[in-house]
């Protein structure tokens, strides 16, 4: 059976580097593997979903683009007409090895293209319902009415076009980390699999509700200043280490020094 390859270029202010896409295209062409290029999956899902039908119902297809979870949940916005289970997702940074496993002649699609021609940058949230617990924080949080509750009582992205470009604030509010902005660059907000862990540990939100607000804010400020200081110290330490090891290496070359000298070279860093 032949595998159909789709590539999303994330062209609208995207985060996928053009060069990476070109490299991938080239290596596919070298191996004589046909592919379909999607200019912007986020855009097509919202504005021209019918263009994606071929991919969604292909017998065996792979979509290469941003985070696999982001692409998967994005396509689930299409509902029943969305992706069937035969479509697999691949991050473009890891596409090389996948491509090497596809042998020439397996893919049959030509050098086709799914365009997105609108001016509007498709920036909007995608809810991962495997994580969402329906707490509605996002609904209450968003000032622009992006979210709504449907008849089943489920929170849905109702007005994606109302979303403010580059604002991922609702995703940060979500206690389940269930909101994905595929075009965002931060870990987990972009749909990468992990949980950031920011939500665990000291919960400031609880603290300001239960304790003295002013002392909580004071502690927060001094903790942060301390962490900046530590960061600076670490940076300085690393810088010194770098310089020292350069010295040490230089000494080694110049003097062909003994082990003893090498050791003194390092000692300044300790």
């Amino acid at each position, binding site marked *: 059976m032949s595998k159909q390859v789709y590539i999303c270029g994330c062209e609208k202010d995207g985060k996928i580097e053009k060069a990476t896409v070109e490299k991938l295209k080239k290596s596919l062409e070298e191996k004589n593997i046909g592919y379909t290029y999607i200019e912007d999956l986020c855009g097509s899902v919202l504005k021209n979903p019918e263009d994606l039908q071929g991919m969604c119902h292909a017998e065996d297809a792979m979509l290469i683009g941003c985070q696999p979870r982001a692409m998967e949940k994005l396509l689930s916005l299409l509902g029943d007409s969305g992706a069937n289970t035969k479509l697999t997702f691949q991050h473009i940074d890891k596409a090389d090895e996948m491509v090497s496993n596809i042998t020439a002649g397996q893919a049959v699609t030509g050098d086709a293209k799914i365009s997105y021609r609108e001016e509007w940058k498709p920036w909007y949230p995608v809810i991962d319902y495997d994580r969402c617990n329906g707490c509605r924080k996002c609904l209450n949080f968003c000032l622009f009415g992006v979210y709504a509750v449907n008849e089943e009582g489920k929170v849905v992205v109702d007005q994606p076009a109302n979303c403010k470009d580059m604002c991922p604030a609702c995703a940060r509010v979500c206690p389940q980390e269930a909101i994905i902005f595929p075009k965002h660059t931060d870990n987990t907000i972009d749909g990468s699999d992990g949980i950031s862990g920011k939500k665990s540990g000291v919960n400031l939100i609880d603290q300001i509700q239960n304790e003295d607000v002013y002392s909580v804010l004071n502690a927060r400020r001094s903790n942060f200043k301390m962490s*900046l200081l530590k960061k600076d110290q670490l940076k300085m330490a690393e810088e010194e280490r770098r310089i020292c090891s350069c010295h040490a290496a230089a000494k080694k070359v110049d003097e062909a020094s003994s082990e003893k000298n090498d050791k003194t070279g390092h000692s300044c860093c300790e």
Partner: protein
Amino acid sequence: MFREELPDIRLSKAVPQSAEKIKHIRELIRDYAAEKNLVPPLQEEEVIHHSGILIWKHPELFPYRKLLAVMINNYAWHRIFSGIPFNRRILLLPKCMSHSTECPAEYDDLGLLCQQCGRCDIAGIITRADELGYHTIVSEGTTAVTLLLASGKVECVIGVGCLHSFERSFPLAVKEAVPSIAIPLFNAECKDSRVDLDWLNEVLSLRDETNWQGWIDLNLLKQEIGNWFTLENLHRLLESEDATSNIACKWMASGGKRWRPLIMVAVCKALGSMTDANTEAIMKLAVAVECFHKASLVHDDIEDDDAERYGAPALHEQHDIPVAINIGDLLMGYGYQLIARAWMKGEQITQLLTIAAQGHRDLSLGQGEELLWRRRKELLPVQQILKIFSNKTSPAFEVALLFGAVVAGGDKALMEIIRNYSRALGIAYQIKDDLEDFNADIGSNSFNILQPSLITAIINERDPLLMQDCLERTRKGDETVAAELSQLTQTKEAVQEAEKLLEDYKQKALNTLKELNNPAMKILLIRLLNKII
């Protein structure tokens, strides 16, 4: 889905793009506010009223009406704000002021942690605010703001944001009566936003020589008052050690929210009349108010045949009915004894006695109406129910508030405002209680239609035949009525109507405060309303 479908929200949410123009409007409003002597917190409709007047005088300001509202509110708070020390103020900046692509900052639960890289204005603002002693939060969206305002523990806020976000947080700031100044952003694009730095700096440094003492830490006060109700202190105040008094003191010391003493003492504090010298007298009066309340509870539980109070057996269950009735009577006596021994001035004693006696009278009239009604087993009209509500609950709040006002030597106008406020508050409190009881009982199918309830009264008013039928079936012992009622659309509509009434009475209570010219008292009564309901 398309941007074109969005209504043009910019029209009324415009902010002039030049600092001079903004300054001009600010000066205009400063003069207006000075002339009108605005007492904060202003209700939304008051703010709209004032901005209406301004637009009428200066029609060219029409596009900026939301901005005007914000500025009017700012000036209303101006004097109090200036009296709050810097280290009790919280500065809230929006994350959208940061550089949209190159900001290196990380985030915690409350927002952005500025690294002072200097790519945007935030670093400079924070440095200035830090020097003064402010607490600064750079928040994304309004969650942190909402939580802070709702915590009831924040004394003062400066908020920078777009007019959209102010629309969100304004009602909360009003609800919690937090002294707050809002400074709108020039743009509402949620990206690379800018603020009028001159304006912000001017507000940041506002501070006069006086300290505003009007903010009352209700949580702390509650703890202090809790200490007045230890067994030891009660025995000391009531000056007795016999077995009957022991039961009375134990009953006084156990459970309850101590709302009434808290209210009374908070009023004394808000009116600036609590000193070390009169604390003992205020304590006696506060305990007196609680004695009256606890006495009425003992009798109430017997009359209503309630076996439990504060999650424990009611007093007549712990002992027996005659003992309990007697304890109620004793507490009444102790209450008056405490009033006599608070050593107030002659005129004040007359006032206190009048207030206490009227409280007992109204309470008993309300309870009496309900008891007679139950005996008749008929349905009452809504107005009658509201009157019972008013009589049953308003006196308790009224007595506590008025006692505080008497201690402070409050004038007639203040007493009148307190009476009207208490009436609306009492009714709202009972509606809420009624709604909660109804929802709990109807959910478990244990609702008794023969109890006085606002919900059944509303259904009866709209559909008398239906309720008549339910009533007759209940009298004949049909136990399916409650389950049937819970399914009816009439019931759902009646619940909605009751919820609306609750909001109406809350608003009524707030409206009574418009004439109040003491901001500390106004703030307290608004906060109490939201704490109690």
